[in-house]
């Protein structure tokens, strides 16, 4: 498989280790992973604030960078949801539709496409709280949301359960939003941070040493909140654990 690696702007800038882990992880399965140099962003920051026209050039650039791959994989659920589910500031040519349909978030790619059933190189003997970002949970359907009367399933938990030593804690509010919400984190910063404090306290009270998520934006916000109120907590992206990161 020829995979185009999409590393969103905020991971590029703040969490390069997540990008590195994603790249190495995909390579472990023997695929050709290409990182188009001229990539930037998926257009979500503008589009989510209602500025769809302002997202057009960015979206067009994304398509130019990522056409021609078997799959485009990104370690970010919100970006992938934007590409697959919205991404309509530009004309929907066949190329555009093709790129959009082939764009996957890392967990769903590993679970649904590669159907990975083991991570023999991975060991993480710690108590972790799993945080499913709202985009991956309810839009990309990573797991069953607690609001619905449907059978339970969880793709990230399926993958993480294959990591030796890992232990999941049980949260009081497993899928309440952590309060990042993109521009919400700044426009409604008091509510946003209160939600973040509540979220990290829930994890802390449940006994988590680490909060793990497939979305670094949530982790970035939660880490900022935890540090501000002095809740000792470590944060890690799922790609890092699956790639064999140690504590």
């Amino acid at each position: 498989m020829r995979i185009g690696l999409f590393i969103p702007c905020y991971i590029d800038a703040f969490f390069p280790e997540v990008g590195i882990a994603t790249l190495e992880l995909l390579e472990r399965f023997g695929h050709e992973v290409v990182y188009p140099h001229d990539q930037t962003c998926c257009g979500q920051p503008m589009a989510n604030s209602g500025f769809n026209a302002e997202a057009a050039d960015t979206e067009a650039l994304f398509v130019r960078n990522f056409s021609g791959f078997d799959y485009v994989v990104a370690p970010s659920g919100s970006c992938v949801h934007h590409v697959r589910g919205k991404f309509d500031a530009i004309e929907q040519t066949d190329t555009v539709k093709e790129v959009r349909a082939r764009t996957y978030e890392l967990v769903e790619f590993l679970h649904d496409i590669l159907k990975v059933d083991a991570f023999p190189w991975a060991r993480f003997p710690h108590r972790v709280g799993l945080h499913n970002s709202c985009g991956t949970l309810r839009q990309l359907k990573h797991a069953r949301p607690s609001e619905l009367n449907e059978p339970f399933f969880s793709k990230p938990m399926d993958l993480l359960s294959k990591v030796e030593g890992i232990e999941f804690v049980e949260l009081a509010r497993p899928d309440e939003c952590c309060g990042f919400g993109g521009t919400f984190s700044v426009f409604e910063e008091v509510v946003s941070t209160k939600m973040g404090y509540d979220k990290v306290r829930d994890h802390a009270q449940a006994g988590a040493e680490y909060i793990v998520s497939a979305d670094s934006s949530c982790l970035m916000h939660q880490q900022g909140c935890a540090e501000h109120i002095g809740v000792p907590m470590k944060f890690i992206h799922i790609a890092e654990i699956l790639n064999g990161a140690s504590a």
Partner: protein
Amino acid sequence: MSTVRDNADDEDGAMLHPQLRAEHDPDAIIRDGRRLDHAEGRSKALRPQPPEPQPRGARVHGNRPVDQAEAAARFIASPEHEKMHDERLWDLRQKRDREMHGIPEWEELRSLASAIKEHTLTHLDEYLDEFEANARSNGVHVHWARDGAEHNQIVHAILRDHGATSLIKSKSMLTEECGFRPYMTSVGIEVIETDLGERIQQLDNEDPSHVVVPAVHKLRTDVAEVFSRTIRTDPSNSDVHYLAEAQREATRPLILKADAGMTGCNFAVAETGTFVVCTNEGNADLSANVPKLHIASIGIEKIIPRLEHLAVFVRLLSRSALGSPVTQYTSHFRGPRQGGEMHVVLVDNGRSERLGMEEFWTSLKCIRCGACMNTCPVYRRSGGLSYGATYSGPIGLIIDPTFNARKYSNLPFASTLNGSCSNVCPVKINIHEQIYAWRRVLVERHEVPLAKKAAMKAAGALLSRPAAYRTAIAAADMALAHLPRFVIYNGLNAWGKHREVPHPPKQTFHSWYKANRGAKQ
């Protein structure tokens, strides 16, 4: 298992009474930056604490955009109120979940409810016709009101014709929408709310904050203060049973001597001309059955085709709202009683126009259960009054702009788009998608601040230019300064006010890749 303590506990594990460790305790003796506590007591203080004052709602100035964030910040700055409110409503959400798990056909019921409503709305004129014909043949007077003002005038005329000067009523969000009580006051009609939460709010001269539990934002001490002022209860007694009983005793005589009664309507059945009102107190039944004259306000979107459809909605309503299988009272009114008179007022007030909005007409399916408010993490921490509108929470975000796009232009941004609301909605309104759609509409209509527009344009320009983008994020401190600004217009300060900024890494992914995996591909 090690438990992580948050900084509410002191070092040896015991918690000092909150009063004793208040940050600015004037009685504290500080040495070297630390409070001396070697002989301090840890028992509860004997002197009574003044109750936390109730945070008031959004500051509304005419047509100026309501600043929900400001009001939300004040709510959060009242920690007892915020904590009670958040926990109370989260509890309702959990009770709802428990009910849901007891009904294997739950998701099917939601689909049925949604389909019935969408069918009805796409044939709304026919079903309203049918409802009116049946209601009239049952002896009910049917009136039509284009807007809130006309509704108020019609009701006033009916009351005047009967020489009525006092009116008891049960809860109706439609009447709130119409500004009914202020109008009645202006024409000298005394209106008495009989729903406990609505009565509290009426006596406090404050709007209801939630469609089902109107005073959910108030602590018992707030209610004690209101009642002591208005129905002369003991100001120092905030026992809930005492307060509720006092209200019952104070209201019963008013119910007995009222000239007329008014209710809202949860569902109106076209097939039989019946309208249904659901309450837990039985106050709709008192309002309708004690006075001779009964007037019901009915939004035109409340119509459902047949009796059999009622089962679907009644099964979903209270489970979604309060986590109980049904309300204590489900009242079906089909005609006036012997010697009585029954009037219904069918109200449009923007609903027919909303029907024509391609992205938003399905918001008319709403059955006013409040489940979206209970699950919304923003609503629970902000309080319903922070929205400055009749309808708050997620449903408010998508219908308030239809009443006034300018005044409510900030509301669709008071959301993280997390989607929980859409999942709990018994009629499957895609609320979070409509919130997103409203953002686009408001931008297109220029109802957003110019500074924000400029920032978004700048972000769009930078993010579509690869070389410029790479330069911007290359240096770690430049990245910290620039990147959050792509997505904001307030500047870094807003992120860092109550939260630490991300730690700058040694290099970007771009740089790492270039250094470790070769040049541009």
